[in-house]
């Protein structure tokens, strides 16, 4: 069997001398969605930042297609095939929606985005507007579309559904399903269990920086997840 697209082993780290996440393990194979669930402040976003290279791992390793990427800075991880859509400040507020979507495309063509505009027509209507004028949920949709349109083999989404209306959350789930069928691997941080249940193959439930539950969706009891999601 080939190496998983993303694997992380014994990942420990945080901000400065403060350790937020401890000893986390996980793997995502091609065509698979791993949902990281947990309350606010349990270290989900910190895990994402450790995986993307914004924070250094105190210990542990991150492997992309079996290759260690521990020393890579975030832009190098992107070039190695890892797309990241952050939870906070998900778009360039000072740039137009068009520039947000086409910043890294040599030809600045919006053609490949056509299918996304059909699902999220709001983006096409706002192309000329500064992204800073969008609502929080609209920014999340823009960030989501930008990330998926990058067509990378691995996509990390940090709370993509936050503030997004339910109808668009369903569209997001369908987009993820289509990408997944084409072999993309996803690691999605979520608090919205209803959304997670639509997309996840496997769960990693965190509390206080540690893994509480992990396994396939079928194996994990919903009640136990809810126990960790609600105080």
């Amino acid at each position: 069997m080939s190496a998983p697209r993303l694997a992380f082993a014994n990942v420990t780290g945080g901000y400065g001398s403060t350790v937020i996440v401890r000893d986390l393990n996980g793997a995502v194979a091609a065509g698979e969605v791993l949902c990281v669930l947990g309350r606010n402040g349990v270290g989900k976003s910190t895990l994402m930042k450790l995986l993307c290279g914004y924070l250094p791992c105190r210990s542990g390793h991150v492997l992309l297609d079996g290759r260690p990427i521990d020393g890579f800075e975030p832009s190098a991880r992107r070039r190695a095939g890892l797309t990241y859509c952050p939870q906070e400040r998900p778009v360039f507020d000072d740039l137009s929606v068009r520039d947000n979507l086409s910043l890294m495309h040599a030809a600045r063509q919006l053609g490949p985005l056509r299918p996304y505009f059909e699902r999220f027509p709001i983006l096409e209507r706002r192309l000329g507007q500064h992204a800073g004028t969008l609502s929080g949920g609209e920014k999340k949709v823009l960030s989501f579309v930008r990330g998926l349109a990058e067509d990378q083999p691995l996509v990390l989404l940090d709370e993509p559904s936050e503030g997004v209306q339910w109808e668009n959350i369903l569209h997001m789930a369908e987009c993820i399903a289509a990408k997944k069928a084409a072999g993309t691997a996803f690691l999605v941080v979520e608090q919205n269990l209803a959304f997670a249940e639509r997309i996840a193959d496997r769960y990693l439930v965190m509390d206080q920086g540690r893994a509480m539950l992990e396994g396939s969706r079928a194996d994990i009891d919903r009640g136990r997840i809810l126990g960790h999601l609600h105080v």
Partner: protein
Amino acid sequence: MDALIVTQAINVVYAVSTLAVLTLGLAVIFGLLGVLNIAHGEFVMIGAYCAYLTQSWNWPYLVALPLTLALCALLGAAVERIMIRPLYRRPFDTLVATWGLSLLLRKIAEAIFGPGFHSVTIPLPGTVQFLGIEYPIYRVVLIAVSFAVAAVLMIWYGRSRTGSRIRAMVSNPELAQAQGISVRRLAAATFIAGTCLAGLGGVMVAPLVPVQPFMGLDYVLRAFFVLVVGGLGSVPGLLSGAAAIGGVDSAISAASNATDGYFAVLVLAILFLWLKPRGLIARG
């Protein structure tokens, strides 16, 4: 129209445009990277000395341009790598570090060229006639080139791909990195562009001012005042700042004397820092 008034009006335009071109380098580095490069004036000085050297070697004046750009780029790259890169987002530290750099560069210039003045001959002597007055050709060319440089920079920043990426980096560096932009390299390139623009300004003004090791001091102060009044991050802000500072300075200097002109500039800058710290045209 009265010839004196026309002459004074063009003098104001000349003062404003040279001020704008001398501020561009500082504006790029301060506005985009948040680094207040106190050694900005010394890069202007390097440009001026390059112009002086070119002339003393009897080379055509335009040779000073590639010479300056090469020197400022090399020096800018080294300074960014060694001094600035570890200090990004530490504004006070970069201020102290670049202040030290300015002292060093000044002393190096003094060691090589001596403490005295050098003058550079105007490469385009003569005058042109228009609106009933005679005006030195070189100053007219300087006005035109200043506006051209500012306009090209503004269009490039607003339209080009690299321009958008720089705006992206300034707006949200983490996200820029997530999209594969090497912020480290782009910031270095931006810093080098700033030092090169400062050098370019030096080549342009060299024939009109005494070239000496301390010349940079005045430029960095004025350039800083321009940014205080105009606001950071846009060419229109820079031009309006240059118009305010250059206009007030040359108007008061013409009506009274140069000391009063400088005093007025200082008062204007203090008023802006106090009452409108984001300047006339703030970014975003």
